[in-house]
């Protein structure tokens, strides 16, 4: 299988990546237009809901959260892939991450920004959202620091800001390349400002390495904590089906899973759109696919653990919720989730499918669908079948407003991502060079190849 060509000229790397910043193909504009249209749908729905009231979403008592929080978890989950690829694999010196970690990190940032929107969207009084911020005020009123929702807000803020910093710090050498290669214009100014005067001096590199490593070290526990805290929204509550000890690891596994699946999807799309075949090689894809398969099995295992612990436990209410999931009104979606999340990834175990682009695209989309369903199946059945039988409710379904906003969120993510790809290099040039350099060195040391570039 073709991997990155070690003989590739460094200047060509620069040229190829920088090319992706210019002259968008028509396909790019089409995607952008579709994304904007989707955002418009979401914004319209939200404006309607804002004006008329949350009732138009057809949420009700007991269905308090519906798709909003389900999709919120979904996007939070997506964000974990970037951290996985850049931080964890960075620490593990897995150099194959290098051509793809940049867009994965961007994905982290943008999916967090999308997830944050859902926190806002689900608020009954969006215009008072700042009450949840801990700002000093004359009356001495603070938010409730005991609320997992506040932890959530804090964790997301920390995660988002750290991810942006991580993304940015890691991009500084590339921004300098952009600066050096741009003609005058707004781009030149932008890159000049953002590159902070980076010249690749030994002092800069020295501090850069330590800082990058340090942030990576912080990001890993942070990522775990973020999704654990999101899981705490549920696990710390008292509701049957949510009050589950294994929720935090289950959520983290689910997050990595959906993130990896999304990386496969975006990998394929970027590879095609920007003609990055030389960098986003099939060998990298294969590794990503194998990683995804492994995580899918972890997820499946945690799923089974959860079911089993509920099933063999004494909490009848939780058991009822589980039975309800498998047999009630949500059963089609629940079984679909099992199918997409645990059965479909088995395809990835077969070598010939690990590099089959059309199959992988389809599979990765199905995996994401499964993971989205998983989040919905966490949120909705518990609401519909809680502790109090009188208020059970399985007849209310999300209205077009909920669907519209969920739909819009995908447009929003795509929009941010597409803009990013045209403004910032989505493949890390300096790290690809490093990768090539180190591989060359390794080969040279083995005496199998001549060095130099």
């Amino acid at each position: 299988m073709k991997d990155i060509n070690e003989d590739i000229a460094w200047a060509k790397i620069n040229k190829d990546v920088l090319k992706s910043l210019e002259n968008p193909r028509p396909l790019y504009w089409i995607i952008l237009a579709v994304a904007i249209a989707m955002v418009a749908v979401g914004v319209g729905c939200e404006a309607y809901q804002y004006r008329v009231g949350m009732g138009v979403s057809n949420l009700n008592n007991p269905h308090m959260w519906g798709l909003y929080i389900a999709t919120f978890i979904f996007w939070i989950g997506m964000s974990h892939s970037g951290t996985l690829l850049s931080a964890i694999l960075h620490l593990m010196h897995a150099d194959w991450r290098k051509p793809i970690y940049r867009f994965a990190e961007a994905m982290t940032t943008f999916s967090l920004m999308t997830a944050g929107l859902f926190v806002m969207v689900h608020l009954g009084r969006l215009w008072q959202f700042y009450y949840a911020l801990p700002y000093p005020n004359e009356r001495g009123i603070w938010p409730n620091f005991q609320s997992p929702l506040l932890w959530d807000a804090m964790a997301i803020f920390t995660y988002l800001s750290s991810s942006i910093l991580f993304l940015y710090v890691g991009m500084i050498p590339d921004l300098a390349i952009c600066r050096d290669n741009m003609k005058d214009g707004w781009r030149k100014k932008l890159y000049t400002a953002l590159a902070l005067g980076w010249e690749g001096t030994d002092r800069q590199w020295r501090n850069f390495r330590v800082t990058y490593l340090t942030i990576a070290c912080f990001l890993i526990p942070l990522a775990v904590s973020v999704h654990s805290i999101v899981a705490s929204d549920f696990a710390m509550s008292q509701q049957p089906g949510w009050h589950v000890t294994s929720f935090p690891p289950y959520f983290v596994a689910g997050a990595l899973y959906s993130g990896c699946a999304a990386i496969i999807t975006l990998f394929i799309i970027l590879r095609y759109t920007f003609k990055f075949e030389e960098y986003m090689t099939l060998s990298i894809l294969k590794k990503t696919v194998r990683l995804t398969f492994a995580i899918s099995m972890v997820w499946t295992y945690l799923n089974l653990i959860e079911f089993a612990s509920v099933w063999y436990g004494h909490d009848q209410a939780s058991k009822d919720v589980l039975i309800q999931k498998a047999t009630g009104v949500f059963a089609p979606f629940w079984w679909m989730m099992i199918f997409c999340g645990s059965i479909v990834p088995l395809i990835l175990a077969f070598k010939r499918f690990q590099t089959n682009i059309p199959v992988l695209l389809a599979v990765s989309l199905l995996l994401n669908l499964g993971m989205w369903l998983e989040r919905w199946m966490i949120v909705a059945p518990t609401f519909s079948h809680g502790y109090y039988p009188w208020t059970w409710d399985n007849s209310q379904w999300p209205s077009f407003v909920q669907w519209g906003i969920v739909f819009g969120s995908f447009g929003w993510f795509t929009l941010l991502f597409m803009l990013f790809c045209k403004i910032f290099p989505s493949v890390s040039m300096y790290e690809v060079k490093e990768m090539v350099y180190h591989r060359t060195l390794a080969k040279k040391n083995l005496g199998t190849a001549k060095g130099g570039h």
Partner: protein
Amino acid sequence: MSQRHLLALFNNFEEAELAVKELRNTKIDGFNSDDDMIVKSPIEHPEVEEFLGDKPVRVQLFTLVGALMGGLLGFFLISGAQANFYAQLKGGKPIVPLPANFVLTYEMFILGGVFISVLGFLICAGLPARRSPLYSVKVSEDQIGILVKSDERASSTLKAIFTKHQAQEIQEEAGK
């Protein structure tokens, strides 16, 4: 005596390494190899540290301070707010619930660590910086640059060393 800047570009890291080593080993009048020499490279070369001499990195210090400050700030801000706001009684919970507060303390620990590390990075790396007088876009592409500052009298010696090690290009500019 006026100062001069010289930037030599090398195609190859090994050649640059040899040039640096020679510069450091050669006693040249009007040139201090510890302070007046900067290596610029398109990628990170950890080996540079070995041949450029021991230059400590202090970002970790910022990290430590930042993380500790973040954690402490978080804990005391939260506990203090809770302790001064009596209306927020939560049935069945103490006014200052430690386990709950540890979560945010932890988040603040990380937030402080990351933010101050980045601040430390900027300070230690001297960023944002004014661009140095001699720069070539080649160093962000594929060449290694060695920027030296010396008295005018030393420049010819330096040039000779660079040329010896197959420097592709030598730029020269009067310092201020």
